[in-house]
């Protein structure tokens, strides 16, 4: 009897210990992702040391990229990355928000189900397939039917001149297609998280579908949609292969958006395996470091925005 009384609590303690062991074990395994993230940044920081020492902060606004003279600057690549991403965003935002409004409607019709599946498949297509399609189909078509007419008729704007098959604008166009699913899927979730009461009140007051969405739902989902846009920006900044295939790979700041350019990711993809010496590969890694730090900041900012809006929605609902 006494033994039984004694074993009971110790069994409970043992069970508790096993449970704590399990919890510790899974939390250690789960730490793999944060650990890898930190390791990536530290590794790139260490690999870029020679270039960091040689060029300092001036690396960011140097325009020269000369492996022979060991002189490297990142500005043309940064310009190309930022320009393609922002043109892509400008093209993708109106379409992406429209898609999100359509998909966020309540009730599942066959048409909406099909549209949703289509958008998800758009996200699933590998980057390299977009690349080969853009290279052989999209870019020649856009060159002939959009770029040439524009530059012929709008002769007085310098940055709309000199069309080329491979260039900044075509890269931005592929990017727009590629970030659209991210943009619309997250915006849809944010719009769905808007408290139902708001929508019902607007409808009860006699607002039409458009008035409800434009004056009530979109304004209250604004911060979350902004987060979705920033998240899509992060994807656009880091996209490599499709952009590399159509941007034309010229390390210059182009005078026209139709002209060839370069992005941070494309420079690394094209040149890293051929880079010899110490300074050249280090400069390429430093481009990667710039890229990853920018996308890190952009992503964390966007995730915080998206989460705070859906949490707010849950609290006010």
């Amino acid at each position: 009897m006494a033994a039984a009384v004694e074993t009971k609590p110790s069994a409970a303690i043992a069970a508790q210990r096993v449970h704590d062991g399990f919890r510790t074990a899974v939390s250690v395994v789960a730490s793999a992702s944060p650990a890898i993230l930190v390791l990536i940044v530290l590794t790139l920081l260490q690999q870029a040391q020679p270039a960091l020492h040689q060029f300092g902060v001036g690396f960011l606004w140097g325009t020269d990229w000369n492996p022979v003279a060991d002189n490297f600057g990142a500005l043309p690549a940064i310009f190309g990355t930022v320009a393609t991403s922002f043109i892509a965003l400008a093209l993708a935002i109106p379409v992406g928000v429209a898609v999100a409004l359509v998909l966020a409607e309540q009730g599942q019709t066959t048409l909406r189900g099909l549209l949703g599946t289509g958008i998800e498949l758009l996200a699933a297509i590998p980057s390299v397939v977009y690349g080969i399609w853009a290279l052989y189909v999209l870019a020649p078509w856009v060159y002939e039917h959009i770029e040439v007419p524009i530059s012929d008729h709008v002769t007085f704007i310098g940055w709309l001149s000199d069309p080329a098959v491979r260039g900044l604008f075509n890269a931005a166009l592929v990017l727009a297609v590629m970030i659209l699913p991210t943009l619309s899927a997250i915006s849809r979730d944010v719009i769905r998280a808007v408290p139902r009461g708001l929508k019902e009140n607007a409808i009860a007051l006699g607002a039409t579908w458009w008035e409800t969405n434009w004056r009530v739902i979109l304004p209250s989902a604004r911060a979350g949609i902004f987060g979705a846009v920033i998240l899509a920006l992060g994807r656009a900044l880091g996209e490599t292969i499709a952009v590399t295939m159509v941007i034309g790979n010229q390390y210059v700041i182009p005078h026209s958006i139709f002209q060839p350019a370069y992005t941070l990711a494309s420079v690394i993809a094209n040149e890293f395996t051929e880079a010899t010496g110490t300074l050249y590969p280090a400069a390429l890694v430093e481009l990667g470091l710039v890229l990853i730090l920018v996308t890190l900041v952009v992503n964390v900012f966007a995730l915080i925005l998206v989460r705070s809006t859906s949490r707010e929605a849950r609290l006010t609902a």
Partner: protein
Amino acid sequence: MNRNMRRSYSSRTWLGLMYALTVLALIPLGLVLWFTIAKGLPSVIHPQFFFNVELPPCEPKCPAVSNAGVGHAIAGTAIMVGLASLMAIPVGVLSGIYLAEYSIARWASGVRLACDVLVGTPSIAIGLFVYAFLVVPFHHFSGFSGAVALAVLMLPIVARTTEGAVSLIPSGLRESGLALGLPRWRVSLQLILPAAAPGVITGALLAVARAGGETAPLLFTAFGAHILELDPNHAMQALPMTVFRYALLPYKSLQAQAWGAALVLIVMVLGVNLVSRWVLRRQIALAGSL
């Protein structure tokens, strides 16, 4: 009344415009599918395309039926994605269980944020990282390092989808397990995980499809090869790299191979996605009935 008519018409016009923009967004999907099928099918209909390896470009005169194929790339993709799955899926599933079962823990929100940030990390940077870690010390490119790069890519996807699938399981199942005196780890691994299996498998499949289509992290790790290579200790070819390299070459015969490889990739990726959507729908129905 006139004003209300105008409002109603304007609302309908906007609604129509929104649907029109949605359809516009899907046009690229149709075009990509159409051109990949149209241009890739002539290569893919020859069975040797799947088994033979690369032949030197045969411009300007090619034999009517080319004997070249992408067998080496298919084998490389299979081996590297397989190895990556062995590394990423167990870790990812356990991470997902941690995220779902201990979701209130402060560390869990940190892990969740890290996973989401890792998903958005440029894959080319992952390639650079693995290059510094596994290629530089061994002085040669290898399929194994390619697999590690792909595993880094897959891990957060598996973790987050597992978390989603586990959270779908009603807490009644967990409570009944605990009430019967099962320890927490058995509840998690032997009760909740099997119930969430379809969702977990879906996540793993989606991660496999994503890894199978990635090019950038392989450029400096697996590097590519012209011959069939089954030893992960050597440089390996992969399907997306075949598309990337051949598409940029001036030879028509190799460009045709690139389109063929792109078609194989698309069929794989879309097949996995459609199957996993079907599985996921069953999971949601199952969870609802529990």
